[in-house]
């Protein structure tokens, strides 16, 4: 019923150099070794959870959505043909599941090109004072600034910087052309820079 993925024909994920490759694990799971899937969950839970958190904005929902994503990925594992990296395939599921979650929650999904969006975002953020930043570490500050962005911007930054996806792979995940991804990435970084200048000026100075 299931076809084994040939190691030579699949795109491997070089990020994980230790332990069995994703493809080896997937083949074991497809052969009925269900427990092997735990290894994939351990490997990608941070990436999936962080991406989900960019959309849901709270940990409880992010955990529920992440769980849903791993279950969906497990159920459709036989459909993974190895044409792309497993991570890229998984992030496609993350993207669709998170969009569905937002639709269900009837939250506003902001378009990148809609200027009004940022007016709304700015208003929402206006209650956020720099003094509320508990830890003045660089990492924490960047994470807080990313949280202030729209899910679209936060997702693209996370995919590029943390999930180590190329423009082509991000394009595959989001269903966009690589050039469009590049433009969106530039804009997302610019917006992040604006947020940091607006809300974390003092922190940036302290860190420098």
């Amino acid at each position, binding site marked *: 019923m299931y076809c084994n993925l040939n190691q030579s024909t699949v795109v491997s994920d070089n990020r994980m150099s230790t332990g069995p490759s994703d493809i080896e694990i997937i083949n074991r799971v497809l052969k009925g070794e269900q427990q092997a899937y735990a290894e994939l*969950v351990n490997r990608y839970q941070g990436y999936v959870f962080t991406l989900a958190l960019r959309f849901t904005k709270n940990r409880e929902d992010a955990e529920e959505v992440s769980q849903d994503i791993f279950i969906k990925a497990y159920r459709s594992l036989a459909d993974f043909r190895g044409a792309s990296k497993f991570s890229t395939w998984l992030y496609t599921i993350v993207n669709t599941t998170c969009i569905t979650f937002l639709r269900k929650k009837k939250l506003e999904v902001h378009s990148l090109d809609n200027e009004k969006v940022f007016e709304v975002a700015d208003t929402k953020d206006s209650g956020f004072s720099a003094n509320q930043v508990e830890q003045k570490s660089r990492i924490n500050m960047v994470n807080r600034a990313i949280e202030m962005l729209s899910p679209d911007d936060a997702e693209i930054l996370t995919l590029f910087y943390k999930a180590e996806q190329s423009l082509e792979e991000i394009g595959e995940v989001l269903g966009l052309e690589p050039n469009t991804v590049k433009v969106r990435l530039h804009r997302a*970084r610019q917006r992040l*820079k604006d947020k940091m200048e607006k809300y974390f000026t003092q922190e940036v100075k302290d860190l420098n």
Partner: protein
Amino acid sequence: MNKQNTIEDRLWDYIDGYGSREERSDLEQLLESNLDWKEKYRELLEVHHMLHSSELQEPSMRFTKNVMEEIAKYHIAPATKTYINKKIIWGIGLFFITLIVGFLIYGFSQVDWSAANSTSNQYIDLSKVDYSKIFNNTYVNVFMMLNAVLGLMLLDRYLADKRKTFKKEM
């Protein structure tokens, strides 16, 4: 604003490692000679490093266990290609293409091409068209009836969906 965007786009490309060798070397020269560009580059590089330093968030300790408990209830669904028969898809496609081509051939064969030349200078008086000749044809009537039935089925489906949504909201 556009100029500013162009500067930033070029700098981001340089930071990300995109662009040809020539473009990169041109930009390097520009960065050495132009203080504004150098300052902008420093700013963007700072954002770039900060983004690299951001950390992944981790779910609760029980997360993997929860997932594994959940998936124990499920089976892996068979690959889509195993239950979607491509021959059937191609068969359906071929059927419709044959049908369309058939209709086109039949339609064109019914056209009296010589008549078009003789009446090309005359206007058609729509009020004098005998519609009964068109709608008196049995095939046309059957076709119209089928369309009417399909339309009613579509309407019924639309209303059923509406009813379901209404019930859910209640």
